[in-house]
């Protein structure tokens, strides 16, 4: 049994422990209002983390995800300006922007040979510049109720679970789709091969550029989806995306993804995102102020990588 346990990714065990701790400290979480709210808050990060996983598995980073979230919220808010009839085409437009941003990121890395850190850093600065210029630095426009439906609406009066946030449904659908693409298709295998050893992958016939484009597009589109959820949650905000790409990277790393290539699984990454959210919730219940959460996030980040490194070396990876 211990042998089986050792094979399970530790992130799942940590997650279970955290849930137990939270439930003991605050019985509110055993009720639907409690745990559904938790999942609703975690949904955007989970989606972002899985998107980021695609890029990390390809051997790179996407630092532009947070800025794209902000741009999605601000852009939707200005374009819609409270007009509910335009919601669907604005969402489509934002998804289109996501595809373009992802493609540009990938091409800059592939064709211009710019390391992904710099490429996505430049994109991050550019996107936040666009968001700031467009909005003039302050929240503008307004998000109508049907746009905010995804991030805010709760389906009520259900048996057993009582309430179900739409955001949770979105998270499940998106994550299942992304899991399927990563672990059940040849594409996923090519992606991991590329991240593990690009030269070998190239020799084996993996089309690096196309694979990379899909990876970065997945990351950017997930950022747009997260933006739609977050915009729904709180409304217009110019700061909503700040630091999110780092949280996403942290979640993926906690889940065991290896930076600079290969290895990460969607399931573990989602667990990583939930661990992060659970950690924040636990600290909140204990009354720790936000700054302490930052310290904890930093320590978790470093420890997760250190531990992953030890496991890797022990298993001869």
């Amino acid at each position, binding site marked *: 049994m211990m042998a089986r346990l050792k094979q399970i990714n530790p992130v799942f065990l940590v997650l279970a422990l955290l849930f137990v701790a939270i439930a003991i400290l605050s019985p509110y979480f055993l009720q639907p*209002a409690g745990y559904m709210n938790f999942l609703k808050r975690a949904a955007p990060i989970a989606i972002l983390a899985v998107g980021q996983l695609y890029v990390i598995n390809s051997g790179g980073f996407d630092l532009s995800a947070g800025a794209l979230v902000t741009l999605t919220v601000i852009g939707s808010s200005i374009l819609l300006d409270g007009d509910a009839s335009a919601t669907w085409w604005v969402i489509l437009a934002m998804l289109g922007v996501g595809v373009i941003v992802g493609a540009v990121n990938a091409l800059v890395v592939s064709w211009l040979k710019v390391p992904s850190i710099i490429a996505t850093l430049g994109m991050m600065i550019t996107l936040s510049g666009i968001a700031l210029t467009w909005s*003039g630095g*302050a*929240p503008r426009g307004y998000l109508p109720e049907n746009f905010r439906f995804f991030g805010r609406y709760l389906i009520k009066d259900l048996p057993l679970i009582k309430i179900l946030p739409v955001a949770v449904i979105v998270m499940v659908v998106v994550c299942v789709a992304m899991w399927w693409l990563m672990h059940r298709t040849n594409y996923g295998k090519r992606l991991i091969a590329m991240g593990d050893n690009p030269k070998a992958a190239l020799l084996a016939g993996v089309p690096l550029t196309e694979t990379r484009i899909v990876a970065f597009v997945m990351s950017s589109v997930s950022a747009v989806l997260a933006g739609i959820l977050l915009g729904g949650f*709180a409304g217009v*905000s110019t700061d*909503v995306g700040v630091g999110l790409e780092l949280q996403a990277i942290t979640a993926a790393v906690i889940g065991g993804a290896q930076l600079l290539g290969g290895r990460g699984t969607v399931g573990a990454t989602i667990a990583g995102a939930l661990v992060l959210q659970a950690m924040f919730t636990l600290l909140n*219940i204990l009354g720790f102020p936000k700054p302490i959460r930052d310290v904890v996030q930093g320590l978790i980040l470093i420890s997760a990588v250190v531990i992953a490194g030890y496991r890797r070396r022990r298993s001869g990876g």
Partner: protein
Amino acid sequence: MINKFTATALTTLALALPAQAQNFDDPVEFAKQKDMLGAAANGDATTPWLQYYGDVMADTSGYKKDGPHTICFSNAGVNNPWRVVGWNTMQAEVEQHDNIAEFVVTDAEGSDDKQIADIEDLLAGGTCDALIVSPNTTAALTPAVEKACEQLPVIVFDRGVNTDCPVTFIKPVGGYGFGIQSGEFIAANAPEGSDVLMLRILPGVDVLETRYSAAKRILEEAGLNIVGAEFTDGDRAKTKAIVEDYIQRGNQLGAVWMDAGATSVAAIEAFEDMGLDVPIVTGEDQQDFLQKWQEIGMNTIAPTYPTYQWRTPILAALKILDGEAIPGPEWNLPQPAITNDNLGDFVNASMPPLHYAACGCEGMPGYPERWGGK
């Protein structure tokens, strides 16, 4: 719940460090503003941006110059909806005057460092006849303003600095007044001993610090239990998350005091989404708050920090350059509060949700389109 770690850390530091350089909890100023709130202002009530309290004037005859003039403005930024409305109002005011040859503006994008550099640039340019400054934070901008005073007449408005070298400092009654208005309302209307969460935009700005200290004083004296004072950066996402966190911790909040109204709706939504009754949540004259207030029928108050104060510095600059006496070293404008009695006067569904009702802009060029209305 008092967190031992933080308490110990803070106490150690409080003992180790000396007191703050600036005093944002001055009982004398507090009393002065409380009196002003009850007094009558001089001037025509239909043009509140020209009204003033008291009778102390500044002699500006030494600044008289022939027009047309170049007026320079160092703006802290337009990084929140209140400032956006104010800036639009100021621009409309400038358009109404033919003897302003040029209106030179710098935007510090909310950074002290940049604003210091901006003021240095404006002074180096050498073309300003008068300089208007809306400082980003109080202490950091003081040396730059002092340097500017040596060269030309300076008008400070909205947020203040720690020097009285400017010709005048234009503001509504003040931060203490704002805190008094909302604090007294909560003290009178919240159940005895209930929990209050205080939400603040950012630290270091005198008019915001004084709102907080005044309200805190009143709430504590009324025996209410302040469970926390958090910074929101004026951001909705943060505000909603903070309120949700406090509710999650088990606090039964009787009131949420906010030092400004841009994110009040986010705080209200936190309660709605968790299926709880909305307690007293204070706000400001932002349309979305007023409309939500009317829609769900709240019992609350919205003190204002009227955006018509953005008109006054332009008028003051022109008067200074004409040698006309103006109220100084302080020009205090009226600061009305919105309650259920006069809510109907301020709600306006045809203006955008992020518009501020007390803008004094109704008759100005470009109304309502310039401010986003229909």
